[in-house]
């Protein structure tokens, strides 16, 4: 019944599994939380919201298994509620007008053609709605997009943040773990029956993804992460993932990339940090090391390092606050 005990705490607290013991972050994220409460207040209009145990109705989406994905989900759910209220209002208004004023006689209706106060009203209200939506968008976006500095020591053990380099290629995925000297790669060989190569990630830690493409544009997308990002040739895209629970999360290429685009599947497997350590050891033992599959040299993109402008603009965000 309480939204904040139901696996959907705010991003700041969910950042780290032990966060319950942490004091609240700096004032910035706290303000963000207050705004979020306000959004929640706005969303209360829908009876759906009051009916369910979970504060945020899913409307068909995943609640998210990363802290970032949960943030996005909440924004989505709030916007969807707003959309249903406004769209529902306008839809019912149209339906009412159509039924109420259907032709009943040959009388000529009153020939009015404007009403300045009403017109001003229905210009001003959307301005307000849009301003509110934009505010929440920016707050969420800064959380979702924030990346920890590359060399930050963020994990509970004080180890450097786990970096995984994902290389998308026609047609498959390669997952390199430079910190662990592990490399996993898989192509579309086993057809639609297979689920593609697997990216194993520890739960409860910050994973920084470096996403690149070897040839054309691909789309990295995991439904349960509520997130996608292009793998662009010549661009190094970085984003952070904080998986909150173990499990298998199917992913797939979302950007048309040629003949076998439909088959470009992969899965993400969230495991506990100790299972992750076991896994890396066994992979190394199996010879799945970085040296085993060198990245094809010919297609290596020239350095074209990119800072996402919104990252650059983002205030020290909630995530960085918990470092």
């Amino acid at each position, binding site marked *: 019944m309480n939204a904040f005990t139901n696996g959907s705490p705010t991003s700041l607290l969910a950042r780290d599994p032990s966060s319950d013991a942490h004091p609240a972050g700096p004032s910035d994220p706290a303000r963000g939380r207050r705004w979020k409460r306000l959004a929640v207040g706005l969303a209360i209009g829908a009876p759906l919201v009051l009916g369910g145990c979970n504060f945020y109705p899913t409307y068909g989406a995943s609640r998210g298994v990363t802290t970032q994905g949960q943030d996005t989900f909440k924004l989505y759910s709030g916007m969807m509620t707003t959309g249903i209220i406004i769209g529902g209002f306008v839809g019912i208004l149209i339906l009412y007008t159509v039924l109420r004023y259907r032709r009943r006689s040959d009388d000529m209706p009153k020939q009015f053609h404007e009403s300045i106060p009403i017109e001003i009203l229905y210009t001003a209200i959307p301005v307000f709605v849009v301003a509110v939506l*934009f505010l929440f968008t920016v707050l969420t976006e800064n959380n979702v997009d924030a990346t920890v500095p590359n060399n930050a020591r963020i994990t509970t053990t004080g180890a450097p943040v786990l970096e995984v380099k994902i290389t998308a290629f026609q047609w498959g995925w390669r997952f390199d773990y430079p910190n662990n000297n592990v490399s996993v790669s898989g192509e579309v060989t086993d057809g639609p029956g297979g689920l593609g190569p697997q990216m194993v990630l520890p739960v409860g830690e910050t994973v920084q993804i470096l996403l690149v493409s070897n040839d054309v544009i691909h789309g990295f997308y995991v439904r349960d992460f509520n997130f996608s990002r292009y793998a662009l040739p010549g661009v190094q895209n970085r984003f952070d993932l904080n998986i909150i629970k173990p499990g298998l999360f199917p992913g797939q290429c979302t950007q048309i990339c040629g003949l076998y685009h439909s088959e470009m599947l992969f899965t993400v497997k969230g495991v506990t940090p100790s299972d992750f350590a076991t896994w890396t050891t066994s992979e190394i033992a199996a010879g799945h090391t970085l040296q085993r599959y060198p990245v094809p040299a010919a297609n290596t993109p020239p350095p074209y390092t990119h800072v996402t402008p919104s990252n650059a603009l983002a205030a020290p965000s909630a995530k960085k606050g918990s470092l």
Partner: protein
Amino acid sequence: MTTTVETPELIEPEEPGGPDGHGPSDHGHGGEHAEHGPTGLLKWLTSTDHKVIGKSYMITSLVTFFISGAMALVIRAQLANPTSSLVNFQTYNELFTMHGSLMLYLFAGPFAFGGLANYIVPLQVGAPDMAYPRLNALSYWLYLGGASMMTLSFVVAGGAASFGWVAYAPLSNSINSPGAGTDMWLMSLGLTGFSAIFTGVNLVATVFYLRAPGMTMFRIPIFSWNMLVTGILILIAFPVLFGAVVMLFCDRHFGTHIFSVQGGGVPVLWQHLFWFFGHPEVYILALPYFGIVTDIIPVFSRKPLFGYRGMVFATLSIAALSTGVWAHHMFTTGVVLLPFFSLLSYLIAIPTGIKFFNWVGTMWGGQLSFQTPMLFSIGFLFAFLMGGVTGVLLASPPVDFMTHDTYFVVAHFHQVLIGTTVFAGFAGFYFWYPKMFGRMLNERLGKIHFWLLFIGFWLTFIPQYIVGLKGMPRRVADYLTSNGWTGLNQLSTVGAMVIGVSFLFFLVNLVQSWRKPVLAGDNPWDGGGLEWFTSSPPPHHNFTHLPPIRSERPVWDYNHPEHRKDESHGDKRHREHEKETVGASS
């Protein structure tokens, strides 16, 4: 009901002055020219009459619509079952690429600005033809060439283009898409792009310079207003597309590296150029159709448009904003400034909302009758409402991250595009068909067409929203049973087939109107625009005389003088006058 109190004096149309003040330079000799010209096929081939060109445009674009619609049905049939093998991957990729390309480049735009607008705008502003009739003819022939080129690319070796209608580099380069189909696709864009530019020039010049005496800017019917703005947007957007197409062509054949990383180029540049065209294009496709319903709703509500000026300013601000939101299609590239493009995209919701309330305000207090054009317009309102609301969601980058390139987006843009081009487009077709061909379409068949389309439409696209949220990407030829997407896809396929069936009733309707014509008369709907003042179909050079133009619906004023709003009276007295006449009219 409509007693004519006084018959206002009619005015002879003046031979209008062209932009240079001497009359359109390539205009021929007015009326006589019609009787002596060639006949039959040669007449059609050499015609510079906007009505003939408009009809040619309409027929050609409807043919591409049906071809493309058939492809959509094959796509839906393929997706009805997981791991289906009705078509292979390559064919599937060609099918959705050609479906999207034909619909957008060859149907949606040309049907609106080459077809309906070409025919109707000169009539609405009281002009004898488009400002540059020969340019208009050239525009059609370029379009026909481009349309044939794109459609025929299916039969060349290597097949048609298969990279989606957006042709992202580097998938569209010569390594990844070596076939001639891609080059034909690019050339088709060049040809149809220039045809659009020429039509844009014509629309702008016609609305600015060929208006009849008394037709001030704020008396232009909204359809023509929107076509003016569309013309301006065409002039902004299409040259950029052409530039991008030329660059891609050079990359493919002349060894440049504009979009290739290996040579130091930037693939994302293609996306910037493409969407700098592409988003205004979305409004090039939408504004004409907004204009159509804005003209139809008052007629079937027997009321003037509510908030005429608000409508014009909404259109202008949508057009202005549409040139600054292109990167909302690129949120997931990670290389664009998210808040800026998000904010501008959100802002578009405001003028769009104004339009909705103006449409409702027009119906409010009216006497609504639901002939086919009005039904289709109301269908548009609902379709576009949901498409618009989900569009606002997509303006939020995080929400876009979670839905981009999934079926959620496919459902969103089909609700918008079918709402506009199909619901509003066919509303316009049913509305103006009597004017263009002098005969009515059957109401019963029209209504069956509408209801089947309406039901099929929701059945097709609501499941797509859900399956998108369940993670189904777009442009995939198959999926797994374990994905759990099968049931929703099957619903969607059934819906698509219902849409397909609905168009059979449309075709039967057309055939019937030719075999057993029911004559339309000049003004079957009691319309208000100048197009309803002349005969159906109009004579060569359109008008023999014109009514006085004192509002945006001069013909209505003429036919209902007791309700005429006389602008010289000033607002207050005008309202009093209204009160008197309302009582008197019954």
